[in-house]
């Protein structure tokens, strides 16, 4: 399993990639592997969302999980690719399979997240 060193991680298995004032959010390789085939992603949040708040749900065949925002910000964009091809998240969870793009409200929040090593320890890898 793959956990890129340049990303930040949460205990709910989301990743954050800072890109200037913005950031991309998705779910980790561990999460997509546990979920199985992703069939639908429902983004319910818009505008400003707090750190840790649910911004939507991700559906696999036999389960639905909440998606929690790793750092607070304003929702800028939802990845349209995963609308029609949700399996992209299974195939490429860190690049093509990003879920939302936000404008960071407080960049310091990103610093408080886990790095790859800490996350790997958390999940026992």
């Amino acid at each position, binding site marked *: 399993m793959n956990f890129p060193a340049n990303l930040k991680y949460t205990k709910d298995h989301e990743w954050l990639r800072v890109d200037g004032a913005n950031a991309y959010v998705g779910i980790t390789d561990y999460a997509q592997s546990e979920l199985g085939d992703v069939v639908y992603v429902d983004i319910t949040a818009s505008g400003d969302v707090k750190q840790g708040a649910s911004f939507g749900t991700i559906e*696999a*065949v036999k389960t*639905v999980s909440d998606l929690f925002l790793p750092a607070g910000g304003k929702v800028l964009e939802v990845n349209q690719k995963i609308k029609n091809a949700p399996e992209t998240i299974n195939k490429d969870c860190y690049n093509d399979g990003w879920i939302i793009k936000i404008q960071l409200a407080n960049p310091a929040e990103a610093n408080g997240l886990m790095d790859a090593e800490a996350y790997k320890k958390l999940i026992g890898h």
Partner: protein
Amino acid sequence: MSFVPNTDEDRKAMLAAIGVQSFEDLLKNIPAAARFRGELPIPSELSEYEALRKMGAMAEKNLAAHGQICFAGGGAYDHYVPAAIGTLMSRSEFQTAYTPYQAEVSQGTLQAIYEFQSMICALTGMDVSNASMYDGASSTGEACLLAASHTGRNEIVIAGPLHPNYLEVCRTLCEGREINVREVYGGDGAADLAMLRKEVSDKTAAVIVQQPNFFGCIEDAKEIGAVAHAAGALFIMAVDPVSLGILTTPAECGADIVTGEAQGLGISLSFGGPYVGIFAVKNDLLRKIPGRLSGMTVDRDGKRGFTLTLQTREQQIKREKATSNICTNQGLFMLCATIYLSLIGKQGLVEVATSSLQKAHYLAERMSVLNGFKLKYNKPFFKEFVVETPVAPSRIIDDLAKKNILAGIDLARFEGTGEGLLIAVTEKRIKEDMDFLVDSLKAYAK
């Protein structure tokens, strides 16, 4: 699974397997003071014959529709039930099976559900149908919940006269979620569009119309749908599927959700149930619908198979976020409806609907000529109509029962429906039946 009861040998073997001498040993942790001692005060057993006699005597007190000339409707109709349905549905594979939870093992059941769903979509013009609901009333109630959840609004407007039982079920289901259900109706037999336009607002989650409505009248569904959509509300139609043999499809009328009672599709009257509800929607509401969904797919060898699909909607997975707690269907009666539609086919349903309509109009015409009898509403109707009577409807019903005629339903039984005799005519009524009814009513004509 075998339904043969356990023998004494079976019990002995089970007790031995868990290392217990007798059944009493399993109860020894219950305090002696709490144990009931002595004989249970219930009558001793009856033989099979004694039981049959006893139950038979009770059953004799009921009037079975098949011994009567039935003009009673009000949501449950005496349409013909083809003989093949009884034979097929009493096969033990269908009749004794509970709703499958390891669903994919029951390919036959899932295929039947898929066929049912496909037929409901063909009948209503909607994109998706679920595997069926308990009945028309609860199906309509569930539609209210879906509309409220989807729009974020908490008011349901009922346009025109809805079946009082349906209204009560909707209110019961909506009460806990603090959704307000209110009727908008002027009292002339059908929805009042001018009144409706004033009452529907941006607080309205959905407008519901029953088609045909409780009094049998045909509503201007397309116009009502337009009023709903103009206010951003959903449009729900509670339909009689038999009427879809000749009426415009709900989809063409702009329905977002279609509910209804499929009892008229090959299910006998059975003292009010069990019946089967329908629930169909446009694609954009797919993920919000209650109940089960059967889907067609291929297995790993490329062979066609059926599964329960989109189960993530249901409460066993989505818990408190599910829009409904329904996770079952009326499997056996859904099957009856499916067999019925397969047997009579598209043309057959047209014939059933046309025959019912024509016969109802024949009877209405003949009755209106009698002094003191008058059609209450001046609206187009399908197979049911309300008649004002020179004497109390209950008297007519009781008197005519002695002649084996079930004359109709006395609207005085319900609150808020006004008075009159509600009469239904199905394709089963022959000319002699209807002439006999009219002749019997002459005695009351002024």
